[in-house]
């Protein structure tokens, strides 16, 4: 149906419907008779770092810090993070784990603040002229105010309102269908105008076709108040919704108003809808017009065990025990302490009353055992399908239950377990008192665990297969390369030796052979995914191996710290190559020595130098051998790493390159002074010097080229790292160490070469 006809239909008071639902006793009168009241501050506030869906920010204060009211406590560049703020002025007395408002009862990182009682505000920066500012600025202000959805799951508001899609309907959810809870009811009654202001801001940001303010029919005062507040806006429509749980569920409300269904795995915006809770609107207005961050909210304290039930302005972080004291908890009415955070249908029981109020806490319910008896033990399902009749998602809860109970998780998914919104309507009606939702939660958790494990084993299998293929490929490549190199060498040897031209050709051939051996280095890496990363790693390893002795390294498939290994292996590669160059230089020197035998001194020197160089080459080769084996082993397991490490690696490579150049120069010197570079010793004296010079030049060029190649290899091989995440101080450190080692070695080599 078109937007306009829908709007007119709603204006005429005609709604659609949603299937199922239940009508539990409302018991709202318990708490909605009095105005929202303030509470004295507790002696301690416990501000959980994460109070919304997403990620927590980094703590910006430390123990002992004085904080002002409204001062930001956490920050993060992550878009899924919203900051938390100091609810009042005081001292940060502890940062650590504390009981959290979470069904699991697991503690969470929490900043403990001891109020100083002054309530001193930090400097606030309101932007009442928001309409003149760019939208991004407003959204930023909302994010910085720490606002996340205050009705349900606590989705970061700034993400919801940054939607790029067209918004047909902005739905303001004031349905509050859970029994007992009246926080939104009172807020609408008392602060309708501010909610309206918040809506105005949202309208400015989203430019929706119409605004629907949905309120359940059992709140006539709230409906009136909102109507009055919105009466000058023809596109704002207050829609009374028939009282039926869960009419306030996001999906159900959209269905009820618009007869649209949010697609499975989709979002309301997929059907042109953005939904915000009235409390969120209030908080947005606060943030924009007074610059106040979200540091308190209305909480309904209710239940038959409280003598002073009602709605209260509660600073976020207030521990529940303080609330119970203030609302005069009568413990004798409960056999065992039972505190429900949230409503009776979807709320969860707290494991301790130390848990604090968070941004999503709309109610603390402390029923008496009489008013809300504990359910008796579950009985057999009689397949009465009362649950199916109550399910607003049109699921077959009973089938879900059978399969969940029998641990037939696949079957449970066939019955669309994951479309269950855990509203509890089914368990509410079940005559056999089966805790259906509990079964679903467990099954869902089991499925998630299974999936994770499956992913893990799939990855391991892929890795194993990839590795086998790689090893095979490598072996073949190696063989081919060796054969080719040998062929070239033989050809070069067959050339008449007394022609300097030929020697140059031979040297060139050698260079080429080497280049070809190193060719795969130059192949740019696809840096798309882990597979590519694995290949890159594999190649790095292979190169490291080649640099050593050409023997296949024993690669271990399982490893812990791939990034380190990657960096290390890259460096090792560079080093190994450099050593190889040095070794070659040495070789040149060495082979030249017999030719220089005339010159006894030179020969001796050359021999000494050659021996030293040989020893060094051997040592280095061994070292290079060790390094990759120990460090490159971990290389398999991959998801990690980062720009930093890559950068460091590049720096290290550059250093290595520079060093290599220096070494090459040195090598250049040596033959020039006293050695004859030649494969073949049968050359006459006269030409020796000339030839030596030519060969030295070649060696230098080669060294330079190889160094460059090594550098570029390092770079290309590290590209995959750039796209992967996570930090890597360790790898960087290791890279630095390696670089230092390489440098030291280079220096040593230099020194050793010096005498010659």
């Amino acid at each position, binding site marked *: 149906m078109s937007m306009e006809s829908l709007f007119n239909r709603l204006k005429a008071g005609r709604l659609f419907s949603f299937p199922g639902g*239940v009508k539990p*006793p409302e018991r709202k009168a318990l708490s909605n008779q009095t105005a929202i009241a303030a509470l004295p501050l507790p002696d301690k506030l416990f501000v959980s770092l994460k109070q919304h869906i997403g990620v927590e920010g980094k703590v910006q204060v430390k123990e002992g810090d004085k904080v002002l009211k409204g001062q930001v406590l956490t920050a993060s560049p992550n878009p899924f993070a919203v900051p938390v703020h100091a609810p009042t002025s005081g001292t940060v007395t502890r940062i650590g784990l504390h009981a959290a408002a979470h069904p699991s009862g697991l503690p969470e990182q929490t900043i403990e603040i001891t109020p100083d009682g002054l309530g001193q505000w930090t400097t606030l920066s309101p932007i009442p002229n928001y309409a003149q500012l760019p939208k991004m600025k407003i959204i930023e202000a909302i994010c910085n105010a720490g606002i996340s959805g205050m009705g349900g799951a606590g989705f970061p508001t700034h993400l919801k309102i940054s939607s790029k899609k067209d918004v047909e309907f902005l739905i303001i959810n004031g349905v509050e269908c859970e*029994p007992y809870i009246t926080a939104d009811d009172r807020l609408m009654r008392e602060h309708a105008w501010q909610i309206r202001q918040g809506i105005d801001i949202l309208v400015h940001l989203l430019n929706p076709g119409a605004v629907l303010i949905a309120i359940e029919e059992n709140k006539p005062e709230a409906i009136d108040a909102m109507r009055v507040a919105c009466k000058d806006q023809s596109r704002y429509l207050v829609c009374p919704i028939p009282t039926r749980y869960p009419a306030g569920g996001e*999906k159900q409300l959209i*269905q009820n108003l618009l007869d*649209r*269904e*949010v*697609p*499975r795995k*989709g979002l309301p915006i997929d059907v*042109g809808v953005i939904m915000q809770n009235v409390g969120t609107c209030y908080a947005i207005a606060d943030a924009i017009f007074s610059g106040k961050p979200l540091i308190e909210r209305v909480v309904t304290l209710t239940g038959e065990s409280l003598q002073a039930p009602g709605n209260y302005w509660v600073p976020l972080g207030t521990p529940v025990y303080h609330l119970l004291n203030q609302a005069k908890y009568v413990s004798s009415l*409960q056999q*065992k*302490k*039972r*505190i429900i955070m949230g409503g*009776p*249908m*979807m*709320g*969860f*029981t*707290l*494991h301790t009353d130390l848990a604090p109020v968070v941004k999503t806490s709309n109610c603390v*319910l402390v*029923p008496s055992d009489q008013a*809300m*008896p*504990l*359910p*008796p*033990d579950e*009985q*057999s*399902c*009689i*397949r*009465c*399908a009362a649950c*199916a*009749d109550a399910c*607003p*998602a*049109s*699921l*077959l809860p009973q*089938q879900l239950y059978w399969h969940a109970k029998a641990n037939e998780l696949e079957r449970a998914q066939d*019955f*669309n377990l994951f479309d269950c919104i*855990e509203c*509890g309507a089914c*368990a*509410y*009606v079940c*005559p*056999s*008192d089966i805790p259906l*939702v*509990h079964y679903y939660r467990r099954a869902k958790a089991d499925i998630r665990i299974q999936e994770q494990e499956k992913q893990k084993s799939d990855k391991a299998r892929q890795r194993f297969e990839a590795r086998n293929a790689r090893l095979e490929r490598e072996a073949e490549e190696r063989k081919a390369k060796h054969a080719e190199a040998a062929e070239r060498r033989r050809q070069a040897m067959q050339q008449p030796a007394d022609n300097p031209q030929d020697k140059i050709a031979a040297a060139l051939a050698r260079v080429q052979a080497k280049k070809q051996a190193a060719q795969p280095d130059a192949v740019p890496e696809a840096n798309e995914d882990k597979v590519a990363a694995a290949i890159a790693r594999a190649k790095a390893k292979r190169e490291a191996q080649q640099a050593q002795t050409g023997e296949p390294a024993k690669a271990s498939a399982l490893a812990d710290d791939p990034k380190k290994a990657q960096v290390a292996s890259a460096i090792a590669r560079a080093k190994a190559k450099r050593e190889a160059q040095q070794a070659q230089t040495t070789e040149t020197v060495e082979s030249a020595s017999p030719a220089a035998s005339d010159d006894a001194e030179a020969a001796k020197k050359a021999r000494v130098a050659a021996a030293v160089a040989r020893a060094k080459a051997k040592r280095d080769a061994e070292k290079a051998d060790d390094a990759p084996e120990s460090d490159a082993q971990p290389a398999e397991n991959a998801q990690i790493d980062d720009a930093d490490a890559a950068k460091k690696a590049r720096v290290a490579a550059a250093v290595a390159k520079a060093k290599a150049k220096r070494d090459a120069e040195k090598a250049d010197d040596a033959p020039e002074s006293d050695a004859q570079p030649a494969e073949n010793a049968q050359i006459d004296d006269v030409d020796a010097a000339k030839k030596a010079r030519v060969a030295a030049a070649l060696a230098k060029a080669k060294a330079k080229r190889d160094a460059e190649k090594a550098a570029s290899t390092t770079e290309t091989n590290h590209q995959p790292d750039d796209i992967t995440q996570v930090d890597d101080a360790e790898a960087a450190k290791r890279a630095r160490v390696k670089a230092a080692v390489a440098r030291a070695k280079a220096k040593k080599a230099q020194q050793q070469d010096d005498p010659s």
Partner: protein
Amino acid sequence: MTFKVASSPHQHAMRNTAGLMRLVIYCAVPGIVVQGYFFGWGILVQLILAVLTALVSEGVFLALRKRNFERALGDYSAVLTAILLAISIPPLAPWWIVVLGTFFAIVIVKQLYGGLGNNLFNPAMAAYVMLLISFPVQMTAWAPVQALTQFSVNLADAASVVFTGFTTDGYSLGQLQTNIDGVTLATPLDQVRTDLTLGLTYHESLQNEIFNHGMGIGWAWVNLAYLLGGLVLIKTRAINWHIPGAMLGTLAAIAAVMYATDASIYASPAFHLFSGAAMLGAFFIATDPVSAATSNKGRLVYGAGIGLWVYLIRTFGGYPDAVAFAVLIMNMAVPLIDYYLKPRVYGHWSKRR
């Protein structure tokens, strides 16, 4: 102090399984009373026998299975099964019929399948069919409406017949089934079927003294009483209207079509609706939650299927009444119905907007 940790929802509707079963039992009372009024005290004897047998056999069996039998007995499901069976069998059938049937229903059909909620078949109807096939003579010996019989049967007589086969005055069951002229009287459904096979027309058959205004005397009232109880069940949302609605609707619709094509050999819709166990079956038997379809769409199909089979078996089959067979047949189809008629889950739509 430890905290009570429980899973949501924390609030529960007050209706429980036992209460639901009790409600169904209460709603059956008018029908039972009317049935007793027309067919004598036998029904009371059968009820007592059946309920006792049910409780004992369920209790013993649960004890053997090492289940908590107090709670299971407290759910009234066995009692309800027993009641449904007791009111389905001839009021003066020998005691071992009802005892055997109840035992079969509870132990074989229900407990051996895994207890309440796991049985594929409606226990009462499965037992009824078993009895009908095994003991056709006893199971078809419905005593006629009291007003038409030669002898009046008091409670003591009824008990005596059930246990010994003879009244306190020494009359046999066979004698009790006769009218003043000594002619054995059948049930309306039987009468019509027999007459039709004898070449009489449907209307000629209705001339028999057991009919009055085209309805079986007594039977119409019994059905009306069950209809009343059934409406209360729907009103109190103990059952949904879908199964009885679809069953009776289908039965009436087919009967109407057939009656319109040939009124001489096909009974009227009203006759079908108010004869035999039509109302009892529609509201109390087919709606047995355990063995019925579970979605509303499924319930419609299930109910319609029963209505269809009832008509077919009554009209073309060889048994006096068809509700039991029809229910069992559709019980078998339930898994299929449930599988194919799953409601469309929220958000699972093909592109629309």
